[in-house]
């Protein structure tokens, strides 16, 4: 059986945290765009992950700081879409993170092809855009919120507030692809309300 050697790149904790943090920024923007939370005009096109991606015009597209990722203390990031009028939670985009604790504790690095990581992320981005296939239409003004699930020993920075998880009751759930830098593994799940015919 022929074996294929793939050129691998060194991944450090710092590097991995940067990849994951950047991913969250682009994923959030993609969700904001594809779900119509912000109007089209707020977005500018950029190239990333081999895809046309969109970013909101303001520079601050870092959703979650890298420090938590570098400390291995970030467990999950959830992007919540709520009705502006009623604050009812309509959609939750869950990104769970598994961190290799060896790397955090001992400072070792790992190896994986950058290209492959990018391909994995690309697959997720494509799925986010394709999710209109099954997601309910959001035909009312919505607001967007980010929840970070951290280890309990993490102090809450002043830019964040403690919050309840804003869950959806009896959600429909769809698991999407995941990506793995060999240091951080990110799984994706989107949950949404069951739409009943007697709802406004």
């Amino acid at each position, binding site marked *: 059986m022929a074996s294929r050697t793939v050129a691998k790149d060194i991944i450090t904790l710092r590097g991995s945290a940067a990849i994951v943090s950047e991913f969250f920024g682009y994923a959030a923007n993609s969700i904001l765009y594809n779900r119509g939370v912000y109007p089209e005009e707020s977005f500018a096109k950029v190239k990333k992950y081999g895809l046309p991606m969109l970013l909101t015009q303001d520079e601050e597209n870092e959703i979650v700081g890298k420090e938590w990722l570098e400390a291995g203390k970030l467990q999950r990031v959830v992007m919540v879409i709520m009705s502006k009028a009623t604050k009812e939670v309509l959609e939750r985009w869950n990104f769970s993170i598994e961190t290799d604790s060896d790397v955090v504790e001992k400072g070792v690095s790992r190896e994986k092809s950058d290209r492959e990581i990018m391909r994995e992320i690309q697959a997720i981005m*494509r799925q986010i855009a394709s999710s*209109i*296939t099954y*997601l*309910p239409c959001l*035909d009312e003004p919505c607001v967007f919120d980010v929840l970070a699930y951290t280890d309990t020993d993490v102090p809450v920075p002043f830019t964040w507030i403690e919050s309840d998880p804003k*869950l959806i009751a009896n959600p429909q759930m769809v698991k*999407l692809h995941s990506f793995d830098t060999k240091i951080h593994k990110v799984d994706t799940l989107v949950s949404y309300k069951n739409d009943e015919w007697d709802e406004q």
Partner: protein
Amino acid sequence: MDPETEFLSSKRQTGNEWELFKENVRPLKRGRNVDLLNHALKARTNDQLKKSLLENRRRLIEAIDEYQGDDPLQPWLDCIKWVQEAFPPGGDFSGLVLIYEQCVRAFWHSDHYKDDLRYLKVWLEYAEHCSDAEVIYCFLDANDIGKTHSAYYIAYALHMESKSKMKAANDILNLGISSNAQPIEKLRDAYKKFLARSMRRPNATEEELKEDDLPVRSFGTVLARGESQRQAIKTFELGRNKLKQDQVHRTPLSIYNDTNMDVTRGHHSKPNTGSNSWHTLGGRAERNKENDAMPAKWTSHKIPQRPVPRIVGAVASAQIEVFVDEECEEKPKVHDEKDRTSSLQLRELDGRNIKKETELLRENPLRNFPSNSLPR
């Protein structure tokens, strides 16, 4: 543990049929259940699953007949929801339009459902499938159905807007607001958006060929309206003047001036007024028509239907037409005479009838209604 955490940490995966076959899936405003969707997509190439789908359909239709409780609309809704999930592309062979029509006709005179939002929604979905839904909105108006709900005014106004009847759309939305339709915030918001759009409207004869750089995004509402627009355009382009007399004078140009054209297609189809459509390539909508959820109308060609002997275990093609052919071939079960209610027609229809009946209803959605119920 909340269900999401549980699912995330489990080994369970969601099938990827939804992504692989997404072009065969018509988005629904209410969203879809992905497991049912994946199942339905698998059924296209799997005889066992197809059989189970047909069984399900029979059972749901029987449930409509057998229902004893005090909410007879509910089994209809169960059936409609199921057909939507089981036939992801929708289309003329799904029988969806027929079920909508029979459902609304079953209850149009019922006081019980006049203000029922679910009943209104069936009407509104029916309207989205018709080539000209104005007659439906007039009917609802004349019969006082759904007028306490914002959804009615929003849908009606959007329809008028799509025909460039801006004043009418404006009046409808205002009427809804002054009637305090619920939820009022949604109606107000829709009105604001309508005003913003009408400011941006180009002049009547301008047609923008918008080459959209941005990756297109579309939502259930836009897509559905777009479908009925495309149907209207195709009907016109194919030279068949099925539009009602009065509409021919009012609407031909407005169809092509439609700035509400759904963004998934991006281009307006250039009108082929009367000329041979082979001379032009047609817009993207025309070229892409195989991928549209609704099959294009066959024109003058009659394709002779030969009953195809059913071969067990044969490789099924991916087209939904084959699915229906098998239904034709199945020996109809023996019905009791007492079963002969109108909803049974759904069960007995074969593929050809479903398509024919669907086409007739699209053009004339109220054709089966008693004439004394029609407006004016």
